[in-house]
Protein backbone atom coordinates (compact mmCIF):
# COMPACT_ATOMS: atom_id res chain seq x y z
CA UNK A 1 0.00 0.00 0.00
CA UNK A 2 2.90 2.30 0.78
CA UNK A 3 4.26 1.65 -2.71
CA UNK A 4 0.83 2.47 -4.19
CA UNK A 5 0.86 5.79 -2.34
CA UNK A 6 4.29 6.51 -3.82
CA UNK A 7 3.05 5.79 -7.35
CA UNK A 8 0.07 8.11 -6.83
CA UNK A 9 2.45 10.85 -5.72
CA UNK A 10 4.52 10.22 -8.86
CA UNK A 11 1.40 10.80 -10.98
CA UNK A 12 0.84 14.06 -9.16
CA UNK A 13 4.44 15.22 -9.52
CA UNK A 14 4.39 14.35 -13.24
CA UNK A 15 1.26 16.52 -13.64
CA UNK A 16 -0.80 13.59 -14.92
CA UNK A 17 -3.40 14.28 -12.24
CA UNK A 18 -4.13 17.74 -10.89
CA UNK A 19 -5.02 16.58 -7.40
CA UNK A 20 -6.21 13.30 -5.93
CA UNK A 21 -7.55 11.70 -2.78
CA UNK A 22 -8.27 8.12 -1.77
CA UNK A 23 -11.99 7.57 -1.14
CA UNK A 24 -14.34 4.61 -0.72
CA UNK A 25 -13.87 1.78 1.74
CA UNK A 26 -10.09 2.17 1.92
CA UNK A 27 -10.45 5.76 3.11
CA UNK A 28 -13.28 4.82 5.47
CA UNK A 29 -11.08 2.05 6.87
CA UNK A 30 -8.23 4.48 7.32
CA UNK A 31 -10.25 6.52 9.80
CA UNK A 32 -11.41 3.56 11.87
CA UNK A 33 -10.83 -0.11 11.27
CA UNK A 34 -9.92 -1.76 7.95
CA UNK A 35 -13.04 -2.67 5.96
CA UNK A 36 -13.26 -5.48 3.45
CA UNK A 37 -12.55 -4.01 0.06
CA UNK A 38 -11.05 -5.33 -3.12
CA UNK A 39 -9.65 -2.14 -4.61
CA UNK A 40 -8.47 1.35 -3.86
CA UNK A 41 -10.71 4.13 -5.17
CA UNK A 42 -8.75 7.19 -6.20
CA UNK A 43 -10.72 10.32 -7.02
CA UNK A 44 -8.71 12.72 -9.10
CA UNK A 45 -8.75 15.93 -11.10
CA UNK A 46 -7.81 15.28 -14.68
CA UNK A 47 -6.42 17.79 -17.09
CA UNK A 48 -8.79 18.03 -20.07
CA UNK A 49 -6.84 18.42 -23.33
CA UNK A 50 -7.42 21.71 -25.12
CA UNK A 51 -10.37 21.58 -27.48
CA UNK A 52 -11.73 18.44 -25.88
CA UNK A 53 -14.93 18.05 -23.90
CA UNK A 54 -14.19 14.55 -22.77
CA UNK A 55 -12.37 13.66 -19.61
CA UNK A 56 -10.13 10.70 -20.24
CA UNK A 57 -8.17 8.45 -17.93
CA UNK A 58 -5.82 7.63 -20.81
CA UNK A 59 -2.94 9.90 -19.62
CA UNK A 60 -2.98 8.08 -16.26
CA UNK A 61 -2.83 4.66 -17.89
CA UNK A 62 -0.10 5.85 -20.27
CA UNK A 63 2.06 7.09 -17.40
CA UNK A 64 1.39 3.96 -15.35
CA UNK A 65 2.39 1.83 -18.31
CA UNK A 66 5.68 3.76 -18.49
CA UNK A 67 6.16 2.97 -14.82
CA UNK A 68 5.57 -0.73 -15.54
CA UNK A 69 1.93 -1.08 -14.56
CA UNK A 70 -0.33 -2.10 -17.41
CA UNK A 71 -2.23 -5.12 -16.11
CA UNK A 72 -5.94 -4.56 -15.45
CA UNK A 73 -7.82 -6.38 -12.73
CA UNK A 74 -11.54 -5.99 -13.51
CA UNK A 75 -12.21 -2.25 -12.97
CA UNK A 76 -8.83 -1.43 -11.52
CA UNK A 77 -5.29 -1.27 -12.74
CA UNK A 78 -2.88 -3.46 -10.85
CA UNK A 79 -0.26 -1.39 -9.00
CA UNK A 80 2.16 -3.43 -6.91
CA UNK A 81 -0.42 -6.23 -6.62
CA UNK A 82 -3.33 -3.99 -5.66
CA UNK A 83 -6.24 -3.05 -7.93
CA UNK A 84 -6.50 0.73 -8.08
CA UNK A 85 -9.57 2.33 -9.60
CA UNK A 86 -9.20 5.88 -10.86
CA UNK A 87 -12.34 8.00 -10.89
CA UNK A 88 -12.62 11.54 -12.18
CA UNK A 89 -13.95 13.74 -9.37
CA UNK A 90 -17.00 15.09 -11.16
CA UNK A 91 -19.67 16.29 -8.76
CA UNK A 92 -19.18 19.42 -6.67
CA UNK A 93 -19.19 17.23 -3.58
CA UNK A 94 -16.41 14.97 -4.89
CA UNK A 95 -14.37 18.00 -5.99
CA UNK A 96 -14.68 19.53 -2.54
CA UNK A 97 -13.82 16.18 -0.91
CA UNK A 98 -10.59 16.00 -2.92
CA UNK A 99 -9.74 19.64 -2.18
CA UNK A 100 -10.29 19.15 1.55
CA UNK A 101 -8.65 15.74 1.91
CA UNK A 102 -6.27 14.96 4.76
CA UNK A 103 -2.67 14.98 3.56
CA UNK A 104 -0.47 12.95 5.86
CA UNK A 105 3.22 12.15 5.71
CA UNK A 106 5.40 9.39 7.17
CA UNK A 107 8.99 8.32 6.49
CA UNK A 108 9.12 10.24 3.23
CA UNK A 109 5.75 8.91 2.01
CA UNK A 110 2.45 10.73 1.58
CA UNK A 111 -1.17 9.60 1.73
CA UNK A 112 -4.08 11.80 0.67
CA UNK A 113 -7.35 10.56 2.04
CA UNK A 114 -10.88 11.98 2.12
CA UNK A 115 -12.18 12.98 5.55
CA UNK A 116 -14.94 10.92 7.26
CA UNK A 117 -17.47 13.75 6.87
CA UNK A 118 -17.05 13.92 3.08
CA UNK A 119 -17.01 10.12 2.82
CA UNK A 120 -20.33 9.97 4.67
CA UNK A 121 -21.84 12.69 2.44
CA UNK A 122 -20.70 10.83 -0.70
CA UNK A 123 -22.14 7.59 0.68
CA UNK A 124 -25.47 9.42 1.06
CA UNK A 125 -25.48 10.28 -2.63
CA UNK A 126 -24.45 6.80 -3.81
CA UNK A 127 -27.01 5.12 -1.52
CA UNK A 128 -26.28 1.43 -2.05
CA UNK A 129 -27.03 -0.90 0.89
CA UNK A 130 -23.32 -0.96 1.76
CA UNK A 131 -23.31 2.85 1.81
CA UNK A 132 -25.93 2.80 4.55
CA UNK A 133 -23.65 0.57 6.62
CA UNK A 134 -20.75 2.90 5.84
CA UNK A 135 -22.65 5.96 7.01
CA UNK A 136 -23.43 4.28 10.33
CA UNK A 137 -19.78 3.25 10.73
CA UNK A 138 -18.43 6.72 9.88
CA UNK A 139 -20.99 8.59 11.98
CA UNK A 140 -20.06 6.51 15.01
CA UNK A 141 -16.33 7.22 14.73
CA UNK A 142 -15.02 9.12 17.71
CA UNK A 143 -13.43 11.81 15.53
CA UNK A 144 -16.48 12.34 13.30
CA UNK A 145 -17.26 16.06 13.29
CA UNK A 146 -21.02 16.46 13.18
CA UNK A 147 -21.03 20.28 12.68
CA UNK A 148 -18.67 19.91 9.69
CA UNK A 149 -20.86 17.13 8.26
CA UNK A 150 -24.02 19.23 8.74
CA UNK A 151 -22.38 22.10 6.87
CA UNK A 152 -21.40 19.82 3.96
CA UNK A 153 -24.97 18.47 3.78
CA UNK A 154 -26.37 22.00 3.74
CA UNK A 155 -24.00 23.10 0.97
CA UNK A 156 -24.93 20.17 -1.24
CA UNK A 157 -28.66 19.99 -0.59
CA UNK A 158 -28.44 16.70 1.27
CA UNK A 159 -29.96 17.70 4.59
CA UNK A 160 -33.36 16.19 3.92
CA UNK A 161 -31.85 12.93 2.65
CA UNK A 162 -29.72 12.79 5.78
CA UNK A 163 -32.71 13.39 8.09
CA UNK A 164 -34.54 10.47 6.47
CA UNK A 165 -31.49 8.21 6.72
CA UNK A 166 -30.71 9.26 10.29
CA UNK A 167 -34.27 8.43 11.31
CA UNK A 168 -34.28 5.02 9.66
CA UNK A 169 -30.75 4.19 10.84
CA UNK A 170 -31.40 5.38 14.38
CA UNK A 171 -28.60 7.94 14.24
CA UNK A 172 -30.43 10.98 15.57
Amino acid at each position, binding site marked *: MQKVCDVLEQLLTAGVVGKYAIGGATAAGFHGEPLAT*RDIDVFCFLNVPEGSFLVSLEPIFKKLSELGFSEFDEEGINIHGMPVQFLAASSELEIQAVNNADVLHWDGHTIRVMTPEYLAAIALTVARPKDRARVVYLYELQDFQVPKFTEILKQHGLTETWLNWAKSLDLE
Partner: protein
Amino acid sequence: MEKKIKNQKFEASSRSHSEGPLWMREKTIWRQKQRNLPLGEKVALLGQTILETLELEKIKRHAKGL
Protein backbone atom coordinates in the same frame (compact mmCIF):
# COMPACT_ATOMS: atom_id res chain seq x y z
CA MET B 1 -15.66 -32.07 29.81
CA GLU B 2 -18.72 -30.92 27.89
CA LYS B 3 -20.22 -29.54 31.09
CA LYS B 4 -17.01 -27.65 31.83
CA ILE B 5 -17.10 -26.02 28.39
CA LYS B 6 -20.76 -25.14 28.88
CA ASN B 7 -19.93 -23.55 32.24
CA GLN B 8 -17.10 -21.58 30.70
CA LYS B 9 -19.44 -20.36 27.97
CA PHE B 10 -22.01 -19.39 30.57
CA GLU B 11 -19.41 -17.49 32.59
CA ALA B 12 -18.19 -15.67 29.50
CA SER B 13 -21.76 -14.85 28.58
CA SER B 14 -22.50 -13.56 32.12
CA ARG B 15 -19.40 -11.40 32.02
CA SER B 16 -20.36 -9.96 28.68
CA HIS B 17 -23.85 -9.11 29.91
CA SER B 18 -22.45 -7.32 32.93
CA GLU B 19 -19.96 -5.24 30.93
CA GLY B 20 -21.73 -4.89 27.58
CA PRO B 21 -21.58 -7.31 24.65
CA LEU B 22 -18.17 -8.92 24.26
CA TRP B 23 -17.88 -8.20 20.52
CA MET B 24 -18.60 -4.53 21.10
CA ARG B 25 -15.97 -4.23 23.82
CA GLU B 26 -13.43 -6.04 21.67
CA LYS B 27 -14.29 -3.83 18.73
CA THR B 28 -13.80 -0.69 20.82
CA ILE B 29 -10.41 -1.90 22.09
CA TRP B 30 -9.43 -2.80 18.54
CA ARG B 31 -10.45 0.63 17.27
CA GLN B 32 -8.46 2.36 19.99
CA LYS B 33 -5.39 0.29 19.11
CA GLN B 34 -5.91 1.00 15.43
CA ARG B 35 -6.15 4.74 16.04
CA ASN B 36 -2.88 4.69 17.94
CA LEU B 37 -0.99 2.81 15.25
CA PRO B 38 1.84 4.71 13.60
CA LEU B 39 0.75 5.98 10.19
CA GLY B 40 3.03 3.63 8.25
CA GLU B 41 1.64 0.59 10.07
CA LYS B 42 -1.92 1.79 9.53
CA VAL B 43 -1.33 2.10 5.79
CA ALA B 44 0.29 -1.36 5.70
CA LEU B 45 -2.73 -2.79 7.50
CA LEU B 46 -5.07 -1.30 4.89
CA GLY B 47 -3.02 -2.92 2.15
CA GLN B 48 -3.10 -6.24 3.93
CA THR B 49 -6.91 -6.02 4.20
CA ILE B 50 -7.22 -5.54 0.44
CA LEU B 51 -4.95 -8.49 -0.29
CA GLU B 52 -6.87 -10.69 2.16
CA THR B 53 -10.22 -9.67 0.64
CA LEU B 54 -8.92 -10.55 -2.83
CA GLU B 55 -7.61 -13.89 -1.58
CA LEU B 56 -10.94 -14.65 0.07
CA GLU B 57 -12.79 -13.86 -3.18
CA LYS B 58 -10.45 -16.14 -5.07
CA ILE B 59 -11.19 -19.00 -2.63
CA LYS B 60 -14.95 -18.34 -2.90
CA ARG B 61 -14.77 -18.35 -6.70
CA HIS B 62 -12.74 -21.54 -6.65
CA ALA B 63 -15.27 -23.18 -4.31
CA LYS B 64 -18.08 -22.26 -6.69
CA GLY B 65 -16.08 -23.80 -9.52
CA LEU B 66 -15.77 -20.50 -11.38
